[in-house]
């Protein structure tokens, strides 16, 4: 809210500079966002938090300034009207919806001559950001800015039967509002009507048909209290926000209704316009009595962590408009406090403690550390696992990225994947139309963007939440959230050095598989296997059918996948290098973790024996079958084996390949004899011959 200091100083006498006032207000709870110069001098721009509707006026801000500086507040005090008088014969107010409008006051002014308002008023309005219109409208705006109570002026002669009915709108009823829009109303909206039709949307905007114009001579001033929630819902439904609705949504002082309309009449008369018709119509069926609260001085000190003497607390509250008396609350020192009608935010003792604390100054709160029970700090189980995995993947040379959860639908998906996607309901932009169901599209997006920026050689990973729609129940989505782990490599993992002529090997399936194997070794997960999927399910449509594997952990299938990105997708994204990716849900990794840490087994003191063999097999025989056959030979002295060469070409016949396998044999209780090793190798050879059709060079 824009507060011209010239205007503010009408209510509070202070000599401080604008900057000092700004700092004082900010540190007291009204944040000053800036100081501007205007024709009227400095204007401070105050941000009012949603709980402080009472500060959406010059007097409201002045009250804070007065309390913070400890100086008196001079609020305007127009001559109060009475409810007696001729006015009640000239108009009437019928309150058909007292739940939405607890109070409605009206006054009449006859014989007005519409013209410009005085220069001082126009200057203040303009400095506060309000355009001057004419003397009557300016008076209503002026009082709203001064006291916070929105007013409305009707042309009395345009009101049918010259009377006011406050009621809910009829379903489909329409009104032409001041902004020239024809608006369709509903039965939950409150309208101000005359004897025949709505003439204003209550608390939001007046109607064009009863608007004050140059021809107006007789006025009806409205000053009312409306239900905040109702105003808010109506304003939202109509997508119509005004200065009035903004204030009513934040609750306006119900006790200030009459004072505001009296102030408007006073100001108008002071401009040389006629005095108002004597008396006011004021329908207020259930006046509110002020809330009474107890403030314990000891309690305030305990919660604030600083002592505020009783008399200082009382002074602060009085300055803010509270009525304060002393009270003996048992043996404690306590204050009995009546809350002013404009402070809807003060409901409990803690609210009062905040008031006395902030006026006393939070800079006086010392720093202490909590004492009492010691608690065990630490990360969650899931958090620790994620940290371990991130470190292992970084060690492998994969850069961590963090991508968006809210995404556009991937452009490269065919068919079924889309049904797992969880759409966001209230969003228009396609960029953020739904929640990612996998990290594959977002990582590919990162790859694509970095390739466009000239990067080549990508190694990335992400651990983050994804969502999948687990089916629609009763027409409702059933989104399930889980953590996914995914990685991508494409092109060379490192820059080619000068020793390799600037060339480095390009990433392939086996590089990323090596990363995963290292990851799972690091997590102490045993029995890791990769196998060709039986069929390419929906989720696998993004992968190359010949270069994709499912991940098995601890001997069990998982939702994990490792493979090359389908050339159709890669082409669409403009990736020049083949891209390899894996994705697995964190829950599946967590399930495969060993229940206990690694045990210790005694190292054999006896030497191992190494031997190689090189079976030749048909191309169709995959290494998995060979490994299976070797394991199936059940050689108990076999410690480990690994493939050391894969050879095709002369002198090996076409359609076959030679695979060199290196074995280490060892016994735990003796040094192996040559004969034992020979027997073991013979067993392995015959297993390979029998199960893989292997032959051995003579």
């Amino acid at each position, binding site marked *: 809210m824009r507060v011209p200091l010239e205007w503010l100083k009408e209510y509070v006498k202070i000599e401080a500079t604008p900057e000092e006032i700004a700092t004082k207000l900010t540190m007291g709870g009204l944040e000053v966002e800036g100081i501007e110069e205007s024709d009227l001098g400095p204007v401070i721009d105050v941000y009012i938090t949603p709980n402080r509707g009472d500060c959406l006026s010059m007097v409201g801000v002045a009250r804070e300034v007065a309390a913070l500086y400890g100086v008196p507040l001079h609020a305007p005090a127009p001559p109060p009207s009475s409810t007696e008088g001729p006015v009640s014969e000239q108009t009437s107010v019928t309150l058909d919806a007292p739940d939405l409008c607890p109070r409605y006051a009206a006054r009449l002014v006859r014989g007005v001559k519409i013209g410009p308002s005085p220069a001082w008023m126009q200057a203040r309005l303009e400095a506060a950001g309000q355009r001057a219109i004419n003397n009557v409208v300016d008076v209503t705006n002026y009082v709203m800015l001064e006291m916070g109570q929105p007013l409305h002026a009707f042309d009395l002669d345009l009101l049918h039967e010259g009377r006011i009915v406050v009621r809910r709108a009829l379903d489909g009823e329409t009104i032409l509002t001041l902004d020239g829009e024809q608006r369709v109303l509903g039965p939950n909206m409150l309208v101000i009507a005359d004897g025949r039709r709505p003439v204003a949307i209550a608390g939001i905007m007046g109607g064009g048909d009863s608007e004050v114009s140059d021809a107006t001579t007789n006025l009806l001033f409205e000053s009312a209290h409306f239900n905040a929630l109702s105003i808010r819902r109506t304003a939202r439904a109509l997508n119509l926000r005004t200065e009035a609705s903004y204030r009513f949504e934040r609750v306006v002082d119900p006790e200030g209704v009459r004072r505001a309309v009296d102030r408007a009449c006073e100001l108008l008369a002071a401009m040389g316009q006629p005095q108002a018709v004597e008396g006011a119509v004021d329908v207020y069926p259930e006046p509110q009595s002020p809330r009474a609260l107890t403030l314990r001085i000891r309690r305030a000190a305990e919660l604030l962590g600083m002592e505020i003497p009783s008399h200082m607390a009382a002074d602060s509250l009085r300055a803010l408009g509270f009525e304060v008396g002393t009270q003996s609350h048992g043996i404690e020192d306590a204050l009995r406090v009546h809350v002013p009608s404009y402070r809807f935010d003060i409901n409990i003792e803690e609210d009062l403690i905040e008031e006395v604390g902030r006026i006393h100054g939070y800079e006086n709160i010392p720093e202490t550390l909590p004492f009492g029970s010691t608690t065990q700090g630490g990360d969650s189980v899931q958090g620790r696992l994620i940290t371990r995995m*991130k470190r292992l993947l970084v060690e492998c040379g994969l850069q961590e990225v963090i991508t*968006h959860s809210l995404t556009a639908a991937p452009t490269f998906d065919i068919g079924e994947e889309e049904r797992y996607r969880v759409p966001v309901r209230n969003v228009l932009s396609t960029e953020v139309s739904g929640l990612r169901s996998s990290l594959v599209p977002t990582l590919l997006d990162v790859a694509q963007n970095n390739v466009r920026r000239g990067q080549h050689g990508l190694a990335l990973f992400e651990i983050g939440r994804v969502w999948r729609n687990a089916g629609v129940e009763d027409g409702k989505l059933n989104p399930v959230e889980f953590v996914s782990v995914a990685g991508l490599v494409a092109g060379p993992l490192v820059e080619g050095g000068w020793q390799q002529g600037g060339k480095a090997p390009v990433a392939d399936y086996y590089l990323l598989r090596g990363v995963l194997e290292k990851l799972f070794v690091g997590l102490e997960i045993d029995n890791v296997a990769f196998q060709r999927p039986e069929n390419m399910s929906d989720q696998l449509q993004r992968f190359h059918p010949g270069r994709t594997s499912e991940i098995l952990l601890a001997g069990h299938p998982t939702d994990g996948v490792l493979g090359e990105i389908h050339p159709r997708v890669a082409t669409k994204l403009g990736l020049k290098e083949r891209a390899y990716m894996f994705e697995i849900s964190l829950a599946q990794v967590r399930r495969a973790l060993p229940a206990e840490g690694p045990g210790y087994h005694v190292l054999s003191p006896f030497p191992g024996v190494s031997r190689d063999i090189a079976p030749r097999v048909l191309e169709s025989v995959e290494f998995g079958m060979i490994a299976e056959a070797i394991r199936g030979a059940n050689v108990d002295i076999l410690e480990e084996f690994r493939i050391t060469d894969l050879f095709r070409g002369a002198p090996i016949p076409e359609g076959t390949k030679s695979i060199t396998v290196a074995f280490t044999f060892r016994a735990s209780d003796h040094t192996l004899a040559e004969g034992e090793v020979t027997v073991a190798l013979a067993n392995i050879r015959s297993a390979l011959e029998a199960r893989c059709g292997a032959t051995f060079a003579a």
Partner: protein
Amino acid sequence: MTDSEDSIQQLVLEAREAVQIAPSTTDLTAIETRYLGKKGSINELRRAIGSLPTEDRKTFGARINEVADTLAGLIDDRRNALQQEELHTRLASETIDVTLPGRPLPTARLHPLTQTSDRIKEVLTGMGFEFVDGPELEEYRYNFAALNYPEDHPAMDEQNSFFVTDEKLLRTQTTALQGRIMSERRPPFRIATIGRCFRYEAVDATHHHTFHQVDVFMVDEKISMSDLKGTLGTFARAMFGPETLVRFRPDFFPFVEPGVDYAIHWKNRWLELGGAGLIHPNILQAYGINTQKYSGFAFGLGVERTHMIQTGVNDLRLYLENDLRFLKQF
């Protein structure tokens, strides 16, 4: 006698010269074999001892041994010298260009937001806070209702949210965890969480619809605003350095009372970091916690904001853009 002494003298002369001009340890070994080997010149002389008169044999034998020792000494000296030379030659020939770059190995880092989160976790863990994860797709009641938001209050205007169903939305604040914790735990507790939040905002250098937030809260007996200030001060000094000061300014959040906005004084500036306050008694009471016995504080912090302050990054959008040139800077 003289004849044989002459031939010995001659042998020593020859051998000495051969040793001295031997160009390599390999040549020297050949010379050693020629003179001192099994079939070498010295042994040839020894074989001649048998043909000498008995009285001369002893003297002659001693003479040969003396010569053999002399030769062995000469050869050892020469070998040492040659080995030194050869080592020098090898070292000289093996000189490399140490200014050429090293063999490239893969380099990678954690994302800067992870690095900042890890540091925040480290500091808060040391202060006894336990980290708990909450869902990003949160229930409406935990995100708003349980946090003392009045129905349809303007406060919610400030966090226009992404809804997925009537009950579920992307959480607008990690504070949503508080209700989840209080529904299952009794005080005392010290809890912290770090995670992703979402608000429907136009994206620019300082606003984003997606951001990361820390939420920290504790409930125990007699927890006060000064405990909050001290905890924030300790935390801020660990994060930003020992000179860092903390300041409170009154502010409004429905879930705290009193509510403040806290700022740190760092490098001669006051920087607003986030919201804080004492947990609103309505929330504690809603979860059956006796507010006359217990009180608690809560504070929030932006992860991006923390990293931006520490490093000078000036555009929030960079964090989720994942430009590798940006990520590799940290």
